[in-house]
C-alpha cells in the first residue's frame, strides 16, 4: 500500500516537472506550429543562471531558492523571447525550417554550456525542509515533490487564467485559429508570438530551477533529458492542448514509475509503447483538436 502511494505521489511530482516543460512546448506549437527543440536549452540556461545567482545570494535557503526561481523565470523568458525575435521570426510560417533552427540552437547551446560549466554535474544545495520527508499513509514522501506539484498547478492555473481572462490571452487564442485575421483587426500578432515564447520560456525556466532541486544537480544536459519526455507528453496530450499536456504528464510519469518498479525497469519502453498506441488509436492525441 505505502509503495503504491509512494509511486503515485512521486509520479505526480515527476509529472509536474514534465508538465512545466511541456506547457511551453504545447503553447508554442499550438499557436505557431513550431516544434521547439531548443526548449530544453531554455530550461538548462535558466537552471544554471538561477543557481549561479541563488548560491551567491544565499545558498541552501528558501530565500536563495526564491531568488533562483525568479532569475530562472526571467532568464527563460528573455532567452526564449530573443530566440523568437532573432531566429524564428525570420522564418515566418516555414515550420520545418523553424524546427531545424531550434535543432541547431539546441546543439550549439548544449555544447556552449559544456564549455562554460563543464561536463560534470554540479551538485546544488537546497533548503532544509526540501530534503526531508512527510509521511502519507505510511509512505515517506520527499517534500520537494510537493513543491513541484504546487508549482505545476500554479503554472497551469496561471496560464489558463491568462488565456481566458486577459486581452493577450484572447489574442493568442484567436491567433491559434486564424493568425491573418488577428492582424487584419489591427493587432500585431508577432508581438504575441514573442510573448508566447516568453511565457513558454518562463515556464521552462521555473522548470529548470525546480529540476535542479529534484535531481540535486545542474548540468548541460539537464534539459535534453526532460525534453524527450516533454515531447512525448505533448503529443500524447494532443498538440496544442494545455490540459491535454497536463493530463498526459501525470499519466506518463505515473505509468513510468509503476513500470520501472514493477516491470523490471521498463518505464521508458512502456512510455514509448503508450505513445505509439495513443497515436495509432487516436492520432490527434488525448485532447487534440481536429486539425
Amino acid at each position, binding site marked *: 500500500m*505505502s509503495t503504491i502511494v509512494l509511486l503515485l505521489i512521486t509520479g505526480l511530482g*515527476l509529472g509536474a516537472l514534465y508538465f512545466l516543460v511541456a506547457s511551453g512546448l504545447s503553447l508554442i506549437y499550438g499557436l505557431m506550429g513550431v516544434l521547439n527543440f531548443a526548449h530544453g536549452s531554455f530550461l538548462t540556461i535558466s537552471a544554471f543562471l538561477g543557481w549561479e545567482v541563488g548560491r551567491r545570494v544565499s545558498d541552501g535557503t528558501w530565500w536563495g531558492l526564491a531568488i533562483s526561481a525568479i532569475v530562472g523565470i526571467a532568464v527563460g523568458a528573455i532567452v526564449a523571447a530573443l530566440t523568437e525575435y532573432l531566429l524564428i521570426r525570420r522564418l515566418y510560417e516555414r515550420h520545418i525550417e523553424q524546427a531545424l533552427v531550434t535543432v541547431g540552437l539546441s546543439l550549439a547551446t548544449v555544447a556552449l554550456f*559544456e564549455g562554460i560549466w*563543464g561536463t*560534470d554535474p554540479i551538485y546544488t544545495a537546497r533548503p532544509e525542509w526540501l530534503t526531508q*520527508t512527510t509521511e502519507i499513509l505510511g509512505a515517506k514522501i520527499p517534500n520537494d515533490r510537493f513543491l513541484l506539484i504546487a508549482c505545476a498547478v500554479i503554472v497551469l492555473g496561471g496560464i489558463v487564467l491568462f488565456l481566458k481572462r486577459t486581452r493577450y490571452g484572447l489574442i493568442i487564442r484567436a491567433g491559434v485559429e486564424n493568425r491573418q485575421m488577428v492582424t487584419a483587426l489591427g493587432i500585431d500578432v508577432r508581438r504575441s508570438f514573442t510573448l508566447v515564447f516568453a511565457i513558454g520560456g518562463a515556464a521552462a525556466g521555473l522548470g529548470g530551477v525546480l529540476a535542479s532541486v*529534484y535531481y540535486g544537480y545542474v548540468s548541460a544536459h539537464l534539459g535534453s*533529458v526532460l525534453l524527450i519526455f516533454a515531447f512525448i507528453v505533448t503529443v500524447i496530450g494532443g498538440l496544442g492542448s494545455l490540459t491535454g499536456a497536463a493530463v498526459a504528464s501525470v499519466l506518463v510519469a505515473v505509468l513510468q514509475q509503476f513500470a*520501472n518498479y514493477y516491470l523490471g*525497469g521498463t518505464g521508458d519502453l512502456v512510455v514509448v509503447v503508450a505513445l505509439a498506441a495513443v497515436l495509432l488509436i487516436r492520432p490527434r492525441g488525448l485532447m487534440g483538436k481536429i486539425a
Partner: protein
Amino acid sequence: DPAAGDAGAPVKIAMLTSQTGPLAAYGAAYTAGFEAGLDYATDGTGTVDGRELEIEWGDDQGNPDTAVAKAKDFIGQGYQILAGTAASGIATALAEQAAQNEILYISGPAAADAITGINEYTFRSGRQTFQDVATAGTFIGDPAGKKVVVFAQDNAFGQGNLAGVEAVLGSKGATVEGVLVAEDATEFTPFAQQLISASPDLVFVAWAGASSGAMWTALSQQGVFDAVPVVTGLGDVATYGAYGEASAEISFLNHYFGGAAGTEAEAAMIEHLEAAGATPDLFSPDGFVAAQMIVQAVREGGDTVDGMIDALEGWTFDSVKGEITVRAEDHAVIQPMYQAKLVQDGDAWKPELVDTIDADDVAPPVAGE
C-alpha cells in the same frame, strides 16, 4: 639485441583519451598523472636510454567512432604503442585494434573486467571492477551466510558489478541479490524502500553519472542508512559533494584519492601535479602507471611488440599506490585498494583513509580460467 639496430630512433607513442565530451575530467586527471609518471620514470629526461619518446595526444571525445578512427590514423603512421581512455566501450574497441594490428595497447582508467585478458596485446594501467567489489567485501568480514544487495543501474557498469559481487562474495557463501534500476529512471524513492524491506547485511551501491545525487538523497530520506550498512566506491573529487546528507554514513571503497598511499612515488606525483596546477585525483595513478609501463616496455622490450609484451608480463614495480604487479597470465594489475570515509571540511567534504587492503586480498581470479 633487437633494440640495438635502431638505437636512438624515437619511439612513437599515441595517447588517446577524452579531452572533450562527458569524460573530459577523467581524461584530464589521467593526462596529468601520465606527465608526472613520465617525469618520474625517465628522471625528467623524457627519454629512455637516449631514445626520444615521441608522445602524441588525441581526443577520443568519449566516442568510440572517433577513437577508432584516430587509432587507425596513429597505427597507419607507424605508432608502436597506444595507450589511454577512461571509457570501457572505447577501451574494448582499441583493444580490438591493437590485436588486429599487433601493437601494444595499455588501456586507461576504464574499469570493465572484460579488458583483462581480452587479448595478448592489451594491458591495463588501472584497477578493474572486480577489485572494487572485492574491496567492498572486506567491509563485512566473513561473507558466509550474509545477505548482500547490489543496488545499481541496469547498464553494463551495474550489471558488471552485480556479476562481480556474485563471483566474489557469492562464492564465499553470501546470498547476493540485485536491485537494478533502469538507467534513465529519475525517481529512486521506491527502490530505497525495496532495499530496506530486503533487510540485507550490506548494500553495495554501484552508481555512476549525474543521477547519483538524487539516488543518495532518496536512500537517506527513506532511512536506508539507519537500517543497513552501505558501501560504495568513492569517485573523483567532483563527486565528493554528491552524497549530500548521507556522506558521513557511507563506507567507501576506493581506488585512489590524493594522500591515500603515502608512498615515495605518490609524493613525487603530487609534487609534479601541483607544480602543473593540478590536484591528485581518482585516476592520477592510472596515468602514472601507464607512463611507467611504457617506459618499461621501451627499455626492456626493444622495438618488437612481442618483446614489449614480455617486458611487461609479470613485471613488479613501485608506483603511487605501492607495489604493483602486472600478472603474466591475463595482464591484470594487482594493486592495493583502500577503505575510506568522507569527513566534513568546512562547507565541503574530504576523504580520509580508513584502511589499506592488501593487493593479494583483492586480486581478481585469472581471466579465462
